[in-house]
């Protein structure tokens, strides 16, 4: 039997709750042990990542190469990160120069256990748009560890499209260090029966007048497991900062496990922090309305699933990345079936 190792503290939120709720961390079995003698000496080493130090150590040790991308000041560039392997990781750092514009497409289409580490540093006035497409095999176990650091006036848009996987652990930390920096983190997810999605999203706001928004929505099928810890940390000194967290979960089945820990940590009075979460199923009266128009309850749920896939497809097409489009369409075949996917292809 191949040797494996269990990462015990993955996706640990900064503020924890009662241990019996089993929401404070995740354990993940990986093919090899993290090597403690591999030290990250890059300038990105101090960028905090969402999945944690143990995860970072494994990803650093498992990556065949460490990729560095530079987007020069004022330049516009697209970076493609592809993780399609098996039992290995990809490791990418991106430096986005002053007033530069970067689009980063991340394709997670691997098999068995695989990982992605992405760290992005945005200089003054820089903008980055990151699109993650999780469309791995039905047996895939993904560890995706992201860290972002924003200087003054930098802006970041991160979109996670989580479509197919067996287990996916997504850890994202965004540090709005600069004044007037803004960050938006959106996740649209489909959690199928028998699969597990664990997310730790952390927004640390240090910059004055910084803005952040976390928006997570998804559909949970019968027998699915989803864990979301999203934290906004308003750190002393971030006067005038605003933060907003939203979560919407559609429960599409009788039995599933949905855990949420939406946290606001506030050490500064001159801020505004809000969060809201709504968890439930399509209301009976809405189902009735749609039934009168010929839709069964399963078809209604499919509408929501389709909207997530369509959204992913639209983002992939807007990026101009054919591999991303292909990955989403392949996932769509498994989620919606060939007929619906053919429609999506035609609508391009």
């Amino acid at each position: 039997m191949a040797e494996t190792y269990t990462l015990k503290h993955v996706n640990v939120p900064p503020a924890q709750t009662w241990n019996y709720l089993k929401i404070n961390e995740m354990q993940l079995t990986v093919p090899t042990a993290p090597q403690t003698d591999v030290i990250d000496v890059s300038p990105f080493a101090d960028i905090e990542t969402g999945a944690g130090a143990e995860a970072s150590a494994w990803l650093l040790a498992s990556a065949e190469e460490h990729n560095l991308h530079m987007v020069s000041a004022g330049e516009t560039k697209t970076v493609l990160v592809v993780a399609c392997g098996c039992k290995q990781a990809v490791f990418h750092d991106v430096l986005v120069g002053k007033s530069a514009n970067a689009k980063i497409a991340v394709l997670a289409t691997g098999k068995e256990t695989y990982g992605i580490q992405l760290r992005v540093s945005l200089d003054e006035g820089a903008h980055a748009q990151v699109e993650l497409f999780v469309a791995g095999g039905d047996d895939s176990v993904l560890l995706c560890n992201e860290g972002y650091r924003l200087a003054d006036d930098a802006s970041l848009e991160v979109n996670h499209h989580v479509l197919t996987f067996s287990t996916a652990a997504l850890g994202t930390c965004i540090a709005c260090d600069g004044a007037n920096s803004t960050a938006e983190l959106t996740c649209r997810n489909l959690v199928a029966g028998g699969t597990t999605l664990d997310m730790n999203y952390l927004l640390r706001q240090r910059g004055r007048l910084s803005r952040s928004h976390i928006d997570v929505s998804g559909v949970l099928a019968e027998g699915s497991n989803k864990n979301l810890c999203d934290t906004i940390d308003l750190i002393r000194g971030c006067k005038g900062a605003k933060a907003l967290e939203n979560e919407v979960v559609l429960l599409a089945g009788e039995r599933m496990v949905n855990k949420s820990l939406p946290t606001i940590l506030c050490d500064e009075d001159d801020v505004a922090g809000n969060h809201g979460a709504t968890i439930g199923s399509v209301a009976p009266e809405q189902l009735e309305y749609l039934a009168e128009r010929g839709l069964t309850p399963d078809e209604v749920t499919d509408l929501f699933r389709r909207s997530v896939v369509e959204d992913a497809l639209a983002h992939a097409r807007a990026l101009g990345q054919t591999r991303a489009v292909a990955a989403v369409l392949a996932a769509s075949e498994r989620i919606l079936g060939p007929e619906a996917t053919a429609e999506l292809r035609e609508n391009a």
Partner: protein
Amino acid sequence: MAESITNAAEDARKGRTAGSVDVTEVDRRLYDFTMPEDGYERYEDGLTPEIVRSISAKKDEPDWMLDLRLRSLAIYHELEMPTNWGPSIDGLDMDHISTYVAPKTKQAASWDDVPEEIKDTFERLGIPKAERSYLAGVGAQYDSELVYHNMQDTAAKMGVVYSGIEEALHGEYEGLIHDHFMRLVPPRDHKFAALHGAVWSGGSFVFVPRGVKVEFPLQSYFRLNAAGAGQFEHTLIIVEEGADLHFIEGCSAPKYNVANLHAGCVELFVGKGARLRYSTIENWSKNMYNLNTKRARVEEDGVMEWVSGSFGSHVGYLYPTTELVGARSSAEFTGITFAGATQELDTGCKVIMGAPDTRAAVSTKSLSKGGGTSIFRSSVMVTPRAERAVATVSCASLMLDDISRSDTIPAMDVRCGSASVGHEATIGRISDDTLSYLMSRGVSEEEARTMVVNGFANPISKELPLEYAVEMNNLIKLEMEGAIG
């Protein structure tokens, strides 16, 4: 600038004994008075089986209660406090806490029979007056023992039982108490539940028979007078099918520069179609470690209402919990927490929805000022059996200066597809526009801030009987003094 909380090294530098804390000078003369302990019985500090046996022997308890105490003590020593969440309790040293301090008096049914200085204490706190004006019954606990317990004849004639729990243990209700005591909060629940099980003393037993509606509230008031001591009262309330009760709990203590501990326990059983409202104004002094545990179990169509105001304590861990085990049962929690200088109050609530068509509504407010830390911590668990359950959680936090802290950590665990759970939270400060508006109408800045805070707290104070709302508003006013600068 708020006085800071001392740690062990600072204690040593200043020559203080372990467990001492600085307390902010707030005008709390109404609560901040001490009485001499002449002639009192005080057990030695620390926690040993001999102390536990002495407490049990003093109360002449049945064997099962001594057995529970000793098992609890063993569990206490076995369990650890979690280190990954919650405020630090490093300043609490059980080797410097006496678990039993008692005046030399027996429980009385008339204030005339209560020793003068103790009666004077409760007169100053307004308890006898409240009893005369609007209560159906009062229990008053002083340090480790109940010193007064009485109930109106009208309530007694309806079959309501309201007595000291130790008194009830020696009568016809021993069996009922055995079947309910530490069943909702077992000793293994957490370390301080185990401590409570080992050294509990005092507290009330309430039994409201089927169909009886108690028109006026019952109240228990807990006063901890002794320095370096703990209070571990146990409140057990059983409200039978179709019955209705409002129970009010109040507490206070004078400030000391050593730690005091409150590890009480409240267990509430709400029968089918019954209603219980449990209101608390917690006003412990700011050297107190308040590690209280409250839990209710609600049967079919039962209603549990919590109203909670937390103003005192140096460190607080307080999460009233409701188990909705019967179909269509419901829970409502309305609370306010005010964390001032030297305070770290971790409060909130838990609801476990374990049956179909259950309902839960949580609405809390928190304020932090003068370097205080207020943490709202909650959990809503919807089990697979809770079909069509509906829960809403709302938390608003107001920060009154830029040296305080406010966190919200609400957890939701939903396992039923037909349930519906909503949550919202806001954190912010009093807006400059609001203050400008009020001040332009001739109100000083301090008054303006107090008005806004009172308005913020209004949804909670209006749930209380008028006299308690007045007390709550007075406590807010006390906390707001010096809020400028």
